[in-house]
């Protein structure tokens, strides 16, 4: 049975702009639920560059993506937003009363008055290697993650990549597969050295194969591969395979957002610059995913957009209520909400 959740605001995307939106919305007494495809908050800051220094956050001469995420999480903690990780919003439907019904791929239904899309460049999806016709085999014999180990039992498995995912699954799947070939373009690995050493031991023991190369072409029919053709320095090579696991990391795709009936501009959502509302009243878009004349994809711009969006969201959730603009430095009311007064 689906889980049903009712709230004021659903924020799609827990990157820096989405997180800060919970602060601005919280000051106005609006309750937030976050939905994010990653397994932790931070969005691009956490996934793409947690250790990279950022130099253009006002008030911080230098801060890393992870530090910024941690600070934002601390900043919004008084408002206790709720997080739903590892899921994607599949659909948004406007209801007769003006509210929205959202469905996720984790069988949840959210009833909310306001939707804030803060999804950056879209949702993170596994990178598809540029191999002709690979789509035809996906989810049948080509997988980008291991959901059920049993799908790989007694199979001839080819794993591609040199990072932790590739090495971890090489080690984990080896005991149950019929054969396993690890393919990587060079003899150097980003993965943890301990895993690399274990993998090399397995190669020495003849339990797995390691080949230097890249995927060229896939053979098979009806979604079932039977051979993986590799391009290697020593020429082309064909490896019998019934399962392929390419691990090339994640990339951002607009995903289902494109099907929600919002006016788009290229791969971004059109908004106005007063409320940052989309072409559907009640659905807002902030941060890298929105578009308006003069738009700059900067975290600081997303923060500004969050503040203005929150005012408009308040007017939807509490129609007719007079909102007095206040500063956190002087308002005891706001300070009480923050737990500092």
């Amino acid at each position, binding site marked *: 049975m689906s889980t049903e959740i009712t709230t004021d605001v659903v924020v799609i995307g827990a990157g820096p702009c989405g997180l800060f939106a919970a602060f601005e919305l919280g000051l106005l007494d609006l309750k937030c639920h976050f939905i994010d495809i990653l397994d932790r908050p931070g969005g*691009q800051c956490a996934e*793409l*560059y947690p250790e*990279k220094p950022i130099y253009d956050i006002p008030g911080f001469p230098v801060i890393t993506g992870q530090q910024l995420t941690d600070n934002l999480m601390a900043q919004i903690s008084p408002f206790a937003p709720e997080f739903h990780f590892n899921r994607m919003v599949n659909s948004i439907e406007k209801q007769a009363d003006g509210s929205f019904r959202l469905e996720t791929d984790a069988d949840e239904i959210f009833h909310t008055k306001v939707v804030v899309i803060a999804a950056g*460049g879209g949702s993170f999806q596994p*990178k598809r*290697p*540029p*191999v002709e016709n690979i789509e035809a085999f996906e989810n049948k014999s080509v997988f980008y993650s291991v959901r059920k180990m049993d799908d790989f039992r007694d199979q001839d498995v080819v794993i*591609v*990549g*040199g*990072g932790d995912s590739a090495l971890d699954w090489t080690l984990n799947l080896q005991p149950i597969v019929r054969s396993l070939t690890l393919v*990587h*373009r*060079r003899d*150097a690995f*980003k993965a943890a050295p301990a895993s690399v050493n274990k993998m090399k031991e397995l190669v020495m023991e003849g339990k797995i194969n390691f080949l230097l190369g*890249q*995927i060229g072409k896939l053979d098979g029919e009806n979604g079932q591969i039977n051979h993986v053709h590799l391009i290697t320095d020593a020429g082309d090579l064909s490896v019998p395979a019934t399962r392929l696991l*390419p691990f*090339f*990391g994640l*990339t*951002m795709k607009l995903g289902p957002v494109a099907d929600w009936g919002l006016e788009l501009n290229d*791969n971004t959502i059109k908004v106005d610059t007063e409320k940052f509302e989309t072409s559907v009243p009640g659905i807002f878009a902030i941060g890298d995913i929105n578009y308006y004349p003069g738009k700059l*994809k900067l975290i600081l711009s997303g923060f500004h957009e969050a503040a203005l969006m929150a005012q408009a969201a308040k007017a939807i959730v509490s129609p007719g209520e007079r909102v007095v603009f206040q500063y956190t430095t002087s308002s005891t009311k706001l300070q009480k909400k923050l737990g500092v007064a």
Partner: protein
Amino acid sequence: MIIHVTDQQGENHALEGLEGWRVMEVIRDWGLDIKAECGGALSCATCHVYVDKDWLDVVGAPSDEEEDMLDSVGDVRSNSRLSCQILCSDALDGLKVTLAASASKD
């Protein structure tokens, strides 16, 4: 300075570059099909290009960190570079690169 870029469809473009800009930024600014999703932070490989053989020595080899990032694309060749790591300078006037399929937005 001019950079010659061949796009994924094989079309050639002569783009004006400015000293100090990254080649990725020039390609993006001219609206060619380059995802460059991390914006030049050397945290993805979606600005992947092949450097023309005649220019390899001038451009130089990728750093270790850049080699690591190249692991995340499936179409690496011996002349692969990330265009965010190539800085425009007079020495590179006339540089020729080809956009890799893995740099495409889709």
